[in-house]
């Protein structure tokens, strides 16, 4: 049951506002066209050879085969067109996917397209280079499509719902991403250039990629605008109303998703995985006043192109004449400030509409058998911890481990292996896993969006910058500073997100949008540091994926106090979190000061995640999916949910550490990657079990 309270104050200028709506939509499109034209002119004049405007026009209209004309025709023009086509495709695809999932945080990355395409290209470059040479756009396209189809079929079945689609997409994205990162790390020399591709780049060597794709983008884009806009508007009224109006909700959703996925895959095949455009372009035009899809689709296409071409102009300008920087890095830097600025203008009442509409997934455990879940989880936790002590570069016997603990180790080597190497690592992994999972649970509870995670409020990206500064940018700094720098980075970026979303209070929507912007911008800066220092790619990747490698008692003593204080504090907040789940009015009516409480919860969540990240690196999976896994296993009040989530998070990371150490011993796979790779199937299994969906 959902109480639709009447909006308190109707703004007096609503009438005038709606009257000019169409004009405003057209204005958005007209401005977009002008900006795009200006950017194109700037873009085509950039480059190593300075070419006069007259020559450029000549080259297009009346080519004579001179070197200048060749440069314009086969290097510069394709690059601009690639930016326009890919940007437009991503913009439209973002609108479609956000409408289908009814989630403002959705984009092509959410349904796994980018992750699938990236993995396909990386895998092909390692295992089947000839295939890649044959047609890399095709490989990317197929990889993206397969991933999206898997996501869609996992999410649909008897009861497809927006939440399921988004969750399945996130799980697949993280799972595939972990495989990709592992491949990159173990094949550093084969694929340095492909990391570049992974950040997205508009460089075109000829018209080939475009010749095979542009008409598809145009076709799907135009068809969507012509045939889907009305259906998408109606879908926005909710499944019931849409059905009542004679819409086949399932097929509409299928067609729109398919169109969105195709467009995103086409964009990937042209320009690599460019992540930010599809997310931000729809928001830009929506915040600028376009509401109905008839206006949204073309406007988002145009502004998607503006962002991408603009990013490329900026990238080439920053990089100077002789180097290249991936445009994908700059899309975030160009789009993020814009998004933040617009998000700040979102009023409280408007904000509510962008909140994700969640439906609850039926839990795995029936109420009656819930008490069984606890001993099962604890037993699993202990078993995995024990396995972690037994296995490693040198497998011990269980008996030896027990004897070591009792104080009579069979030999000094075993004593060392168990007590100085493995035990502290496992403790660090357990503490960090618990911290990240609980942090994710809290952030999701406050922001009320299933796609929220500690990263959303800027934690991991901020910590990454801090860590990369120590690792790469200023190598003279002692490595011991790394945790401190990471913690400081996380705190600063959270403080920025919070301050920027503050305007007479905090709305979760504004927080989420600003958070997306900040995270993307910080991620771009981190990427920029990496791309500029290709020699340290592996070091950086290891830290960015999260690793428990060589963690010892020193790390335990750094991490333990935080967790000992913060986890109980988080637990005392469980009552608040329960109430926040009921919307804003209930906690307010019960006398909870909303903004202060929210800040306190977030601060604790940030401290938990930042402490964990500063020690083990930016592990993404646990904060996002462990809370869902625990909610699906054991739904209910946070009093029980918080400890349970902590156990799940700890078990996941301890298991990941163990597998990471043994899988390719003596080499190690970063535990963050293993966590994603092993957690994804578990999560998908849970999702499949909760087939039926309860609509409240």
């Amino acid at each position, binding site marked *: 049951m959902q109480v639709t309270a009447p909006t308190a104050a109707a703004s007096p200028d609503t009438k005038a506002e709606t009257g000019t709506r169409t004009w405003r939509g057209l204005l958005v499109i007209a401005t977009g066209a002008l900006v795009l034209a200006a950017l194109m002119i700037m873009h085509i004049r950039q480059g190593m050879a300075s070419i006069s405007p007259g020559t450029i026009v000549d080259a297009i209209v009346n080519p004579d085969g001179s070197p200048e004309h060749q440069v314009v025709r086969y290097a510069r023009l394709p690059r601009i067109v690639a930016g326009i086509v890919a940007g437009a495709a991503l913009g439209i695809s973002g609108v479609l996917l956000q409408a289908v999932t009814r989630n403002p945080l959705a984009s092509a990355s959410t349904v796994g397209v980018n992750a699938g395409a990236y993995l396909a290209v990386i895998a092909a470059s390692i295992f089947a280079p000839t295939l890649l040479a044959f047609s890399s756009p095709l490989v990317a396209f197929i990889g993206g499509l397969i991933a999206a189809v898997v996501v869609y079929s996992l999410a649909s079945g008897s009861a497809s719902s927006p939440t399921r689609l988004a969750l399945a997409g996130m799980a697949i994205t993280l799972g595939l991403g972990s495989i990709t990162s592992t491949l990159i790390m173990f094949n550093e020399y084969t694929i340095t250039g492909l990391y570049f591709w992974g950040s997205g780049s508009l460089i075109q060597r000829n018209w080939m990629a475009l010749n095979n794709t542009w008409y598809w983008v145009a076709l799907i884009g135009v068809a969507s605008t012509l045939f889907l806009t009305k259906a998408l508007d109606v879908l926005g*009224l909710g499944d019931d109303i849409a059905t009542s109006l004679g819409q086949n909700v399932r097929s509409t959703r299928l067609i729109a998703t398919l169109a969105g996925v195709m467009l995103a895959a086409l964009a990937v095949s042209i320009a690599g995985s460019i992540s930010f455009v599809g997310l931000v372009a729809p928001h830009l035009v929506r915040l600028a006043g376009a509401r109905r899809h008839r206006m949204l689709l073309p406007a988002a296409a145009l502004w998607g192109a503006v962002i991408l071409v603009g990013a490329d102009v900026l990238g080439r300008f920053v990089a100077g004449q002789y180097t290249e920087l991936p445009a994908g890095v700059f899309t975030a830097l160009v789009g993020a400030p814009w998004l933040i600025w617009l998000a700040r203008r979102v009023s409280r009442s408007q904000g509510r509409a962008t909140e994700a509409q969640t439906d609850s997934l039926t839990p795995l455990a029936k109420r009656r058998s819930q008490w069984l879940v606890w001993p099962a989880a604890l037993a699993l936790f202990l078993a995995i911890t024990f396995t972690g002590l037994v296995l490693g570069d040198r497998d011990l016997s269980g008996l030896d481990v027990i004897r070591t603990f009792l104080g009579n180790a069979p030999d000094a080597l075993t004593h060392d292996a168990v007590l100085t190497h493995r035990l502290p690592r496992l403790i660090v992994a357990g503490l960090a896993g618990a911290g990240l999972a609980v942090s994710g649970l809290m952030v999701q509870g406050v922001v009320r969006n299933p796609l929220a995670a500690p990263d959303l409020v800027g934690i991991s990206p901020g910590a990454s910058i801090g860590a990369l500064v120590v690792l790469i940018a200023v190598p003279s700094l002692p490595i011991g500073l790394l945790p401190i720098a990471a913690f400081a980075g996380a705190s600063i970026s959270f403080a920025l997100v919070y301050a920027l979303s503050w305007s007479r209070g905090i709305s979760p929507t504004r927080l989420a949008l600003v958070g997306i912007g900040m995270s993307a911008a910080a991620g771009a800066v981190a990427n920029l540091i990496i791309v500029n220092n290709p020699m340290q790619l592996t070091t950086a990747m290891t830290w960015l994926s999260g690793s428990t490698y060589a963690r010892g008692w020193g790390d335990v003593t750094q991490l333990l106090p935080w967790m000992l204080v913060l986890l109980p504090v988080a637990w005392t907040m469980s009552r608040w979190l329960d109430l926040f789940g009921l919307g804003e009015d209930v906690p307010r009516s019960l006398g909870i000061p909303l903004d202060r409480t929210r800040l306190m919860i977030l601060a604790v969540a940030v401290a938990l995640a930042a402490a964990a990240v500063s020690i083990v690196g930016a592990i993404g999976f646990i904060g996002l999916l462990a809370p869902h896994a625990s909610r699906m296993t054991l739904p209910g009040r946070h009093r029980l949910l918080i400890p349970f989530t902590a156990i799940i998070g700890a078990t996941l990371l301890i298991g990941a550490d163990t597998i990471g150490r043994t899988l390719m011993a003596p080499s190690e796979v970063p535990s963050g990657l293993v966590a994603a790779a092993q957690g994804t199937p578990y999560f998908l299994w849970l999702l499949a079990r909760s087939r039926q969906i309860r609509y409240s």
Partner: protein
Amino acid sequence: MSTDRLRLGYDHRLVVDDLSIDLPRGQITAIVGPNGCGKSTVLRSLARLLKPVGGAILLDGADIQRSRTRDIARRLAILPQSPLTPSGVTVRELIGYGRFPHQGLMRSPSRDDLDAIDWAIDATGLDSFQDRGVDTLSGGERQRAWIAMALSQKTAVLLLDEPTTYLDIHYQIDVLALVRELNRTHGITVGWVLHDLNQAAAYSDQIIMLKDGKVVNRGKPHTVMTTTCIKQVFGIDCSIIRHPLGDVPMCLPNGFCPLLSPEHRDRTQENIAPSQDIPLNLAD
């Protein structure tokens, strides 16, 4: 419209088993019953928002599960309990969505569409609101806008799920009277779920009382609004009186008089008891 041995359920729980009811053409039928009796479930299934486990739902003699959803949308509209309010959509635009089943994919609104929208605005008295944003309206106005959207669908059957919830008494009467007016002047067949027995009795031609997914009683308001029926379905003691101004049965729960001592209450009931089921002029 009718159901034939309908079975409905969520997950593995059967809510309704073997239900056959009938919404007579051109009449207003109310479905009432205690919470969780399956009345909303039945209404949702009538509007093909919920797929039956077994049995059939017939609209003009044809099974709606076998008909195209767009064809049904031209003949049947439903207003669900709490639809999402889209932001930044004007009242007129919202009402325009009701024309969806009548429009092609790309054709611009036809004369018929505009006429239907104007008619719906007119019928619901939303003239002065049509350019306001739906999210700026009060609860009653918003409910009228949603009803207008369903009206612009121009269907012969209109289903409403608790249309008066969250409204004050003024808007409640407003909405109820509007629906009856539409029924009387345009012959629209109405099926609604109502919580208030008196409203159901006053504004419906037929009442179906459900309990645990089964029909306990059905018929004209006079015949089902009896103390025994209400005791059986809702488990409360009540008195049935006649509206002072006309021939409408009203249910007054005896619990409304908590100050009466138990003995006194019994005595009162005895006094009323002999006449309680026949207080009305049953001429029909």
